[in-house]
């Protein structure tokens, strides 16, 4: 065998510069960019740049030579080369104004077939779902675009169609878990096949100009081109797993009476589908929604009740509760309220929703309906009010979902100053950290309100009664709760020592079970936990002290007041 020259083996042969790749593939730079994005081949950073660049030390864009070889076998390379010829021919037709030929050519435009690439990049359905974050965020964004230089109108229309279809699948599977309104847009998190998918939907504004200097529209459009195909396949699979017909349709009985209004049936159907307000047609109407998950967890729990299973059980219960959160509730959305996210949320948790007929197609009931339980309004005042329903601000719906609970409406009445909208994405570890009672109340109002009130009732119950008559009906169940707590405490008092002993024993066992290579980590975790607990305890103590001081001051002031009154 011939002796290899310098850079013919090792890192020097492993990498290939972009220019070399272009020559090898016989493509223009634009086509190469497109091919790489579609195929999911990205540039690499070598370990030793000078060696990888065969001695030159400037910074080049490098690819793995094996990746480029992989691209070489791709059939769409031929289509990309066909494009060049296509453009040459159509340009000629245009120049000599031969429009008949031009039309014929345009009709026979060589299409890029990306199906096999989707399969190649995502060998399983789960792989595709794992990469859905990027896809959804981009498509939701592009669905708001008008036709731009590198974003043809069909592309944005396609994005709109696919995203709507996806939302339907989310509603049908009740997969939504978390929602958050940020200044960027609406964050949604859904649980699809056990994978957490997060996406952002931009705020609903008529048009936002995008500055061309920041973003390369051409590149983004290529990403969108691939993601539309991918989401199409994902939607198809999702729909079939939910027993829905894939190009979405709805049962015929729903909108027959309105059909005379719209001459074009297709637009009628697509409008209703875009409204997100009607259940889609099922392939097999007899199949009922089954709930297998619960069974699994129950079986597991009988084996052993370790922490993890307990946690899982808790989570499953939460999800079950979430899925029926708005069941039996009827919402009416006023104008000026973002319709789409609210409809998505309400419908995916079992509620019924409608809006003004003139606002958007697909309204199911009118404002005059007496069975409406909540009306969502984003104005300080409403001219006509119905007694039978609660008028709330849109944040109510979002907060209910994040706290997996129907919150008391009084904080969300129209015109009220809303409580802060907290992010559901903050890590649960944060619970260890000291949280001031004010924030706790924001997170879980039911928990802490009683606590504060019980303090009050201990100290000066006569005052609390005079303060507000609202608190009176709540007071009795509170007392019951207190009694229960006290009872529990008593029960525990007998066994605290034993319990502690068992706990320490368990802890020791756990420590022993830890593998030696994980011991360091375990110790670190324990230490961190202890530190956090200590800090928590210290801050709690401080708070108590401050509270007590304030109470003292209050008492003193009261006494002084009384004295002054008496003297007067």
């Amino acid at each position, binding site marked *: 065998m011939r002796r290899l020259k310098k850079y013919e083996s090792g890192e020097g042969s492993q990498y290939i510069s972009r220019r070399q790749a272009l020559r090898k593939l016989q493509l223009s730079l634009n086509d190469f960019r497109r091919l790489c994005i579609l195929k999911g081949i*990205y*540039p*690499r*950073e070598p370990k030793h740049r000078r060696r990888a660049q065969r001695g030159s030390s400037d*910074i080049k864009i490098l690819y*793995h030579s*094996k*990746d480029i*070889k*992989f691209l070489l076998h791709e059939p769409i390379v031929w289509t990309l080369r066909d494009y060049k010829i296509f453009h040459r021919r159509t340009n000629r037709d245009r120049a000599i*104004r031969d429009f008949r030929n031009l039309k014929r050519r345009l*009709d*026979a435009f060589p*299409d890029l077939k990306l199906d096999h690439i989707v*399969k*190649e*990049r995502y060998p*399983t*359905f789960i792989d595709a779902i794992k990469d859905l*974050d*990027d896809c959804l*965020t*981009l498509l939701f*964004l592009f669905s708001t675009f008008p036709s731009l230089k590198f974003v043809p109108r069909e592309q944005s229309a396609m994005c709109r169609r696919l995203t709507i279809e996806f939302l339907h699948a989310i509603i049908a599977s009740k997969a939504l878990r978390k929602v958050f*309104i*940020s*200044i*960027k847009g609406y*964050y949604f998190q859904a649980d699809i096949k056990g994978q957490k998918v997060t*996406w*952002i939907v931009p*705020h609903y504004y008529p048009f*936002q100009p*995008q*500055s*061309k*200097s*920041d*973003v*390369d529209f051409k590149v*983004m459009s290529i*990403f969108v081109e691939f993601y539309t195909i991918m989401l*199409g*396949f994902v*939607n*198809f*699979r999702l729909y*079939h797993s939910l027993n829905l017909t*894939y190009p979405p349709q709805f049962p015929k009985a729903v909108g027959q009476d309105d059909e005379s209004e719209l001459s074009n049936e297709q637009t009628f159907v697509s409008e209703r589908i875009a409204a997100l307000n009607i259940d889609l047609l099922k392939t097999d109407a007899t199949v009922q929604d089954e709930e297998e998950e619960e069974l699994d967890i129950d079986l597991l729990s009988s084996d052993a009740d370790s922490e993890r299973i307990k946690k899982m059980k808790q989570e499953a219960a939460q999800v079950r509760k979430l899925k029926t959160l708005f069941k039996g509730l009827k919402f009416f959305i006023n104008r000026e*309220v*973002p319709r789409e996210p609210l409809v998505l949320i309400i419908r995916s948790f079992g509620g019924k929703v409608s809006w003004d007929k003139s606002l958007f197609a697909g309204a199911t009931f009118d404002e005059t309906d007496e069975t409406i339980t909540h009306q969502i309004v984003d*104005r300080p005042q409403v001219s006509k009010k119905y007694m039978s329903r609660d008028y709330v*601000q849109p944040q109510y719906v979002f907060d209910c979902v994040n706290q997996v609970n129907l919150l008391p409406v009084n904080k969300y009445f129209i015109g009220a100053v*809303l409580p*802060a*909208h*907290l*992010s559901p*994405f903050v890590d649960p570890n944060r619970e260890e950290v000291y949280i001031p009672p004010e*924030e706790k109340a924001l997170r879980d109002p039911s928990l802490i309100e009683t606590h504060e009130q019980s303090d009050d009732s201990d100290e000066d119950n006569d005052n609390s009664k005079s303060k507000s008559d609202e608190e009176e009906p709540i007071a009795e169940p509170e007392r019951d709760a207190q009694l229960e707590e006290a009872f529990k405490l008593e029960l525990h008092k007998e066994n605290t020592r034993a319990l502690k002993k068992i706990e320490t024993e368990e802890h020791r066992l756990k420590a022993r079970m830890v593998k030696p290579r994980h011991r360091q980590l375990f110790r670190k975790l324990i230490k961190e936990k202890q530190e956090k607990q200590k800090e928590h305890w210290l801050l709690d103590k401080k708070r108590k002290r401050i509270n007590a001081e304030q109470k003292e001051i209050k008492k003193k002031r009261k006494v002084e007041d009384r004295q002054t009154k008496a003297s007067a």
Partner: protein
Amino acid sequence: MDFVEGKKRKRVSKKNKTSWRKHIDIEDVNDFLETSRQDERIGNVSDKPDHELFFVDTTPKKQRLTARGRRKINAAKPSRSLLALENLSKVPDPIVKRNRVRTKDERKHFIAKSIAAANAAKGIIPKRKLQSENDRLKSYDKLNERVKSKKANKTINQDIWSVGDVIEQHPEYNSQWIDKNVAEHNLCNTGTAIKTIPKGAFHKRSKLKSVSIPHPGTSYNPSRKDHEELLKTVIELEEKFIREEEHLNRVTTSMFDKMTAAQRDELRRKEMSAGIEELEGNVPDFKIDDSSDSDTYKAVNPAVIVKRKDKKKVRKAREQKVIQQKLLKAKLEKKKVTDIHRIRHLKEEIKEMEESLKDARKLKAKRKQEEKFEPRRLGKVVFQEQDIDFSMPEAICGNLRNVKSEGSLLKDRFKSLQQRNILAPSVDVGLRRRREVKRFVRKSHKEEEPQPNALKKSQRGNNNDKKIRIIDK
């Protein structure tokens, strides 16, 4: 006389008969007489009948052609590129019987021509022509079909994940009796491509999440604490930028002395005329310091004189060296003995060293883990982190109707792709599009003004300043 003609006099005397005749204007009288005489000769217009004065235009008006018609006529004409070949010369061809290639029509035999003409008169079309027409129609049909099927294929109607790999798609090879290698070999050699995907091709290049978790302070109605936290991070980042800029300013701009143009010119004049004054005679006193011995000549670079050591000195030096070596050896020996007593310390030292090495190793491993979250250097341009999106405290209004959105989602996505090593960061697209045009003024138009190019450059500099100012904000 021409002197008189050159100036037209205002007043002329018409005293004599001759001068009167010379200067009087009789044109109108002449005109009148002329017309009256003409009338006498051929009569007045009003006397004539209509048919003598007017006539009916029977030639058709030139029709306005449509664009298409004009094009058709033009198409029939020989192309403009051939115009140059047309012989416009009046000189007759010297060769009277010039040989030329006959046209296709001329080449035809007169019998064949007559037969064709007869057939055409009967309405018989040659088979060849019919065939070609047929083929054309067929090709159009095929094309239409292809277009139709393409449109139908656009809707997704299959589950790609339910279809197995290549072997599973071929049932004849999908059995337990056929080895996978054999199946692949056979398929490969019967025209079915089998692709192998390189191992790391689709590995994720970064551990960053594609949609990062939003900071709680970016909520449209954030809690005070979260929002303050976010603002704090933003301020810290901004301060870092400002500090950096100040540093750069200090190290570059403010490092150099500043002077006015006049000062600069003065300095230049001084520098350039440094030696001239001396020549003129105002020689400054240089010689003061070395005027001690003015008689002896002293070169600027005196010759080096090698002083050889004498033998004694060499010997002494050698002896000293040996002594030094001996001393060193003794010292080392002594150290060995003491080291035996220092074993405990040494052990400690080794332990310390090992620990520090271990720490370094740990740090390196940690750094490596962190690097998985960082953007790599893919191209010439370095990745620049995106600004943090935040709302100012006064922009928070607490209801969804008036929420003011911050930051661009598209830019966020674009940056995220760059951060995850999917796209190589590139130059600002807006800047890239602008083409550099070299401008210059014609020699005839040149004045003492600055060049437009230089002017433009200074403007560009201003733009940069603006950008920096924006970053400041």
